[in-house]
């Protein structure tokens, strides 16, 4: 199992008001699956992705990543887990502005210490069709190209699980469709598990499994 969530609750405190963002969420995602997560704004999509991605601790419940519970893990262990097992793709691409394409893609490998395996980065860049843009900086690329760099970056560390938070939201429909095609293709070719949140029902339909979230509760 790639991800297992058991009775996940997430409560935020906004001043004196408590907001229950996730309400007893249980979810199992198999290795190699392609899951779309849909729901209106404020339904808890991003919170759920952050909990699955081990960047947000649930208020209660348990998260297992590839059979390993994250409960009680220290920050350094969580960082290693994220680096080794989970790749992220964000709506706003979130590339590191001072690094070029190759360096951005190499980044998850470089922070492991020692010299990064450049062949992995080159292969990831090639798989998203950006071999001709290695030395370009993010501000020299179009939105679609930037998102492809972000995908290559997520792939380079060979994480097994990729979490994409509305990866097509900032792109025009044609580019969005191309990005979705790329994700589906990578899932098929590499067997990488994808969890993709989106507002777009058409894009959602490309996934093998659909999960809908409403007011912090899952409706599959």
């Amino acid at each position, binding site marked *: 199992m790639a991800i297992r969530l058991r009775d996940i609750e997430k409560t935020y405190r906004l001043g004196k008001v408590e907001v229950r963002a996730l309400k007893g969420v249980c979810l199992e995602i198999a290795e190699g699956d392609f899951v779309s997560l849909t729901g209106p704004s404020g339904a808890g999509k991003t919170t759920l992705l952050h909990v699955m991605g081990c960047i947000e601790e649930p208020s209660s419940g348990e998260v297992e990543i590839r059979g390993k519970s994250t409960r009680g893990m220290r*920050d350094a262990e969580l960082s290693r887990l994220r680096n080794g097992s989970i790749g992220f793709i964000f709506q706003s691409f979130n590339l*590191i502005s*001072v690094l070029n394409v190759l360096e951005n893609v190499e980044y998850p490998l470089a922070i492991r210490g020692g010299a990064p395996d450049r062949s992995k980065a080159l292969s990831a860049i090639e798989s998203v069709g950006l071999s001709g843009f290695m030395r370009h900086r993010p501000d020299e690329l179009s939105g679609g190209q930037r998102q492809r760099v972000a995908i290559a970056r997520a792939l380079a560390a060979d994480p097994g699980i990729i979490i994409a938070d509305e990866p097509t939201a900032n792109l025009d429909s044609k580019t969005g469709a191309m990005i979705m095609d790329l994700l589906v293709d990578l899932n098929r070719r590499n067997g990488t598990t994808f969890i993709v949140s989106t507002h777009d029902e058409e894009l959602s339909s490309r996934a093998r499994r659909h999960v809908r979230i409403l007011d912090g509760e899952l409706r599959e």
Partner: protein
Amino acid sequence: MITLEIGIRNIARNPRKHLPTLVSIAVAIAALFIYSGSNEHIFSSFREMVIREQLGGYRIHARGFAENGKREPFDCMIRGLDGLSKGLASIQGVDFLAPRLHFTAIATGDAGNAILRGFGGDPDSEARMARGSTLRGRRPEGKGNPQALLGEEALSALSADIGSTLTILSAMEGGGISGLDIEVVGAKKGGGESDLENRMLIMTRLEDAQLLLGLEDACDTIIVHTKELLPGKDMDGRIAAFCAESALEYEKWDELAVFYERSREVFAMNQNVLTAILLLVAFFILGNAMYMNFMTRMREIGTMRAMGTSKPQVRAIFLSEGLALSIVGGAAGIAAASAFALAVNSLGGFYHPSSVFNDEAFYSLIMPSWGLVAAYWGLFIAVSAASSLAVSRRALGISVSDSLRAE
């Protein structure tokens, strides 16, 4: 390494954004460079003046002088001065000697009396020591009738002037009172308006003082001037050995230069206070700049953390940014201050009018101690490291999730 590189590139790629911080650090270090460099030169000149014109490298007295010299001066005279002087002058490293015989006298002029304190000395040696003081007339010199140089105010008190003859009275060895008619050949005025020297000074030839006190071939002090301005331990050893053999005792210049040492301490304290203020200001300027920088890159930091960047690696990014700012800013400040110092020094230095500290106006150069400049730079680097770590602590206090949600 990638984290360090990101930090450095953040600075290098956004020069305009970081310019105010760089300039602030550069100005602070340049200010310390110039202030400390100017002080350094003033105090090294002051020290040289104190040694060359007042104290010499060593002051030699008869054994027991420190304990009894003021109470029983005639028991603490250096006797057989000629022989001892030859021996001292032959010590390696000795430049010249200035024997002195101090006395207190009552002077009577045409229209008044005054108490005078001073000494008789060897004219040639005293001339070599007496650079820079304001003088009217001349110093006692040559042979012939007794002659003296007095402080300007002492002369006024006696209604006398150059060319006047005064009668001076003093206690002799053995208890008698001796009197000497002495011609005023010069007047001296120190920098202070009411200093002791102006009111009481009398300087005569050594032979006149010996005549007044009824002594022969004797003095109470031999000032030893060395070829090196600051004599070292070898010289100390040679002087100590000579004194031990000859029943003499000695004091080194730094034991006697109380005013110099205290002045230096006061200036050093001022300099330390200024340094502390500038470091504190730098801490907040750097911290503020880096915090603003972080606020604009909060999502980037969150992304890095999401990809598995550890807390120490995030700290390394902030640290490298802070270090880059302080190293580059410090280097720029030192380069600018060096250029300024070069220009000021080539134009003759800063003008200082005469004051209570200096008889004559002088120009000070900017001559910093490079060790001190390096220490200041090091302190700014340390402060920027502390400031960076304080900001990284705040940055790491924000959850990854919240950082990613930042606009």
